[in-house]
């Protein structure tokens, strides 16, 4: 299907099914039940799930395939966001120019950064990208305030030119749309105690993610993808085989920069704003984490990683001490206090602590991420059924398969 091999088509279909049905999958609990706090099927979160999925898919094309660890990819997302907001301010509230220009501007910026940074490899490359991102962040916060809005960030205003749009009526706030469909429009479907929300913005972002995912499969399976994996495996051999690695790595860098730009453009389409904090190096670290957690170099890994982190970020940050106490209320008083006390640092504002610990655990015990973990578990079941089959299961656990 679509020029993909069978297993990849299956993967693509699974991703399509998951994104289309996300409003159901993410809202498994009735609205008034205790468990409703674990529901994630509201537009804002669903949008972020797929948008950061795009970001991670793109990052994986660079890091997963070539092994070049960029610590500054958030800069491209940030630059894309600013470009997107400016399109909304100058041209039209229709999101298409914003998204397209975000991708182009982020691509151009990543071409510049990549061209310089890729002269070095290993840790030098990581630090160069980090330096560029920090520079962008510092500039966005200070000197470039006229373009970036500095600390307050950049938002569309009623008085913006928007040369392609008719003037808004007095007192109407500018809302992003796609040919008249507003991004924050939703349709609520009520089934029994459940409410399922279908949101315009989410589905636009989801279509982008499915396309981005499809493109990444094509890249992974192409001769270009093969060369990128060869760069990671043995760059010296590649050079002595008559291949210049720099254009390949640069192309991968720019492609992943454009993915970041797409994510930035979509973020703008959803919330019509951009701020420098999107470029801070912790944001760059987050996308690294998503990719590693899911499984760097695998197709589905980054999507899983992004979903996992954004979902838990949201859920864990929402839990507070009161909720914890209700959970442990079935225990005797002293014991429940102990449990609440132990868990409390990790929830709510402690999400970053949980994240850091998760990060370490994954790197230490599961360098291949969730995908590898899944394969290990699947392999265990397989071996129980058929102990002689271990050779094939280890071959299928190879990255990028």
């Amino acid at each position, binding site marked *: 299907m679509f020029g993909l091999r069978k297993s990849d088509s299956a993967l693509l279909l699974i991703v399509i099914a998951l994104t289309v049905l996300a409003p159901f999958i993410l809202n498994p609990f009735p609205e008034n039940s205790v468990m409703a706090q674990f529901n994630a099927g509201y537009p804002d979160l669903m949008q972020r799930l797929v948008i950061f999925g795009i970001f991670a898919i793109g990052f994986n094309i660079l890091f997963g395939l070539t092994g070049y*660890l960029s*610590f500054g990819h958030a800069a491209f997302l940030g630059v894309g966001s600013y470009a997107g907001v400016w399109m909304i301010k100058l041209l039209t509230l229709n999101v298409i120019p914003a998204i397209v220009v975000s991708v182009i501007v982020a691509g151009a910026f990543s071409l510049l950064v990549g061209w310089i940074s890729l002269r070095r490899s290993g840790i030098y490359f*990581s*630090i*160069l990208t980090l330096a*560029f991102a920090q*520079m962008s962040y510092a500039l966005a916060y200070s000197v470039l305030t006229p373009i970036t809005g500095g600390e307050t960030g950049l938002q569309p205003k009623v008085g913006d030119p928007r040369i392609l749009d008719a003037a808004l009526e007095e007192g109407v706030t500018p809302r992003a749309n796609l040919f008249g469909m507003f991004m924050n429009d939703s349709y609520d479907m009520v089934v029994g105690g459940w409410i399922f929300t279908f949101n315009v913005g989410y589905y636009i972002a989801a279509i982008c993610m499915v396309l981005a995912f499809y493109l990444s499969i094509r890249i992974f399976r192409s001769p270009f993808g093969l060369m990128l994996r060869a760069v990671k495996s043995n760059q010296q051999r590649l050079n002595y085989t008559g291949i210049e690695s720099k254009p390949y790595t640069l192309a991968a860098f720019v492609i992943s920069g454009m993915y970041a730009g797409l994510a930035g453009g979509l973020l703008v389409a959803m919330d019509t704003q951009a701020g420098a904090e999107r470029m801070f190096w912790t944001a760059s670290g987050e996308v*690294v984490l998503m990719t590693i957690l899911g499984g760097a170099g695998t197709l589905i890994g980054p999507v899983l990683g992004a979903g996992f982190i954004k979902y838990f970020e949201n859920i864990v940050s929402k839990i507070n001490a009161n909720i914890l106490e209700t959970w442990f209320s079935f225990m005797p008083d002293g014991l429940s206090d102990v449990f609440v006390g132990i868990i409390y640092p990790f929830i709510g504002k402690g999400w970053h602590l949980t994240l*850091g610990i998760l990060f370490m655990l994954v790197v230490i015990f599961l360098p291949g991420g969730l995908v590898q973990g899944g394969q290990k578990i699947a392999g265990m079941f397989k071996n129980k059924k058929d102990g002689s089959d271990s050779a094939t299961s280890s071959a299928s656990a190879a990255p990028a398969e």
Partner: protein
Amino acid sequence: MEAIVLQILNGLDKGSAYALIALGLTLIFGTLGVVNFAHGALFMIGAFCAVTLSKILTLSHVVIDATKKDFLGNPLKVEVPYIYDFVGENAGNVIIDWAVPLSILFAIPIMVLIGFIMERGLIKHFYKRPHADQILVTFGLAIVMQEVIKYFYGANPIPTPAPEAFKGSLDFGAMLGFEANSIIYPYWRLVYFSFAAVIIGGVFAFLQFTTFGMVVRAGMADRETVGLLGINIDKRFTIMFGLAAAVAGLAGVMYTPINSPNYHMGMDFLVLSFVVVVVGGMGSLSGAVLAGFLLGILESFASMTAVLETLPGINQIIIYLVAIIVLLTRPRGLMGKAGVMEE
């Protein structure tokens, strides 16, 4: 002329901090071959050692002073630090006043211990893993450390003043024959710079003149051969990690009066210190120190009003800019050796 001297002096204290952190980073990288993204967190923990000690020293109990009345006419409740009970009020005040310098004694064992635990418990398992894994796991550790500190101390900076004796400023201008008050320099910054110089000198002397240091230097040059000679290099490397942690911690302790410590100060310094290490030359101790001071001073020059008028924002990016230029023109850094991290 005054302005130039002033900017050099201003750059020295930040440069000292960069140099101290970069020195530790280089020690760890040179000996263990590990890229430690948690090194900034060690700096931050050092600073919080000072915060902790001054909190401990000011722990108080409430005493009712019957001789005075508050505005409602009730006997006045006065908080009295426990330390008064042990050494008396005057000596107690002196000790509280000198909390930051005293923290050095308090911080050394803590930092060395943290260093040992980190190396034995975590870093050891990453010697043979790719640099990317080392970066990632120490990055995770750094997040954990700063979040733990944030949990206990909150997100706001905690002012931790220098002893009263160092509160004032030195009139350098008058000393050098310029006009009075043209170059004034806070005493504590002078202390910080001297302290950094002593630590740096100490580390270099330790490496230069002791057998232990000789083995470590040999290990930095060629780890395999030293291992083949039957020297247990691992144990020494653990000690080196402890030493590097202590250096970072002390840099943090003494920095608290200059900038009130907060939980993310480590990361702020780390990113810059890495840039410093790269500029100085990966694996070169003297390069790290030199680049630390150079970049500190450069940053201070870039913050001059005259410079900012022509190149707005340059103070924010000068260090990164220099790093990019150095990496592209001298990939080994200012004093880097051949064969270190070249791919």
